[in-house]
């Protein structure tokens, strides 16, 4: 039987880039677009797509401001996002335990 189906892994969190973004935002109060791009080693367009998906799911909040004349995108995790991340970690832990028990 497929373990993912039993645990209902959150597909929004499951993607590596989105998982990386949430890992950063759960540690910090907020992070800007540049830091997220550098840390996740992804392109502007790719990061934008993932951020939009996370925002649409209500997992993160995106605030667009101006720093002088330069536009700035600041992201922070929402309560829903933090809970989803926590649940995802618990599920990972469960998978590890199950596989340990099998062996």
């Amino acid at each position, binding site marked *: 039987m497929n*373990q993912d189906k039993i645990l209902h*892994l959150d597909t929004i969190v499951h993607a*590596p880039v989105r*998982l990386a973004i949430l*890992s*950063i935002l759960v*540690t*910090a109060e907020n992070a800007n677009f540049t*830091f997220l791009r550098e840390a996740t080693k992804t392109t502007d367009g790719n990061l934008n797509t993932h951020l939009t998906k996370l925002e649409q799911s209500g997992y993160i909040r995106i605030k667009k401001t101006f720093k002088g004349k330069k536009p700035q995108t600041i992201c922070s995790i929402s309560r829903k996002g933090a809970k989803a991340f926590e649940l995802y970690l618990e599920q990972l832990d469960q998978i590890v335990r199950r*596989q340990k028990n099998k062996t």
Partner: protein
Amino acid sequence: MNDQEVQKEIVIIKKMIEKTRRETAESGHFFMAIGIYSIICISAMGTLNFFNLYDLSQAVMIVMLAGDGLIGYITVFRKEKKEKVKSYLKTICYSIWAACAIPTIIIAFLFPYLGVISRSLVGVLSSLIMGIAVFSTGIIFESRIIIWSSLAWWAGALVMAFLKVIPQPFIMVIMIFIGWIMPGIILNKKYRSRSIGNESR
């Protein structure tokens, strides 16, 4: 999802958390800058007190507190604007320092003039409050040395309670060195080692 995939995800999470922690590490510049400036001002105050120039000493105290505020603004708020990541820890730490600075100002300026406390108690009470700020900083940044250095403030407060106004500034200079500059150096060392680690990855 197999074991390898889980391990890959755990590695991603760990890496990202570590990168964020490095980026948000406290540089210690705030503590060192305020510490050095305060030592200069307090030494001047001690010298003026020695020559019974109390009014001039009070003027130096005003300059010191205004300067501390300016240094705080430059090292904390202006730097924060340039930062890519904002951390909860720093926000909490700076809030505690601000919360401790306000009662210190009230004790140093308002209370002696209102006749609530004598001048000799200003240093004692201020040191007790500064001890709280340093202790909290140590807890926030998980540094035992900083936690221990807060004892310098409380021990100094006890010593000053038995001293007159004149020698108090000289005790405070020692306390500032142990309780501000030393924690600043420790935080800076940690910050530098983290930055080097960040560059090499």
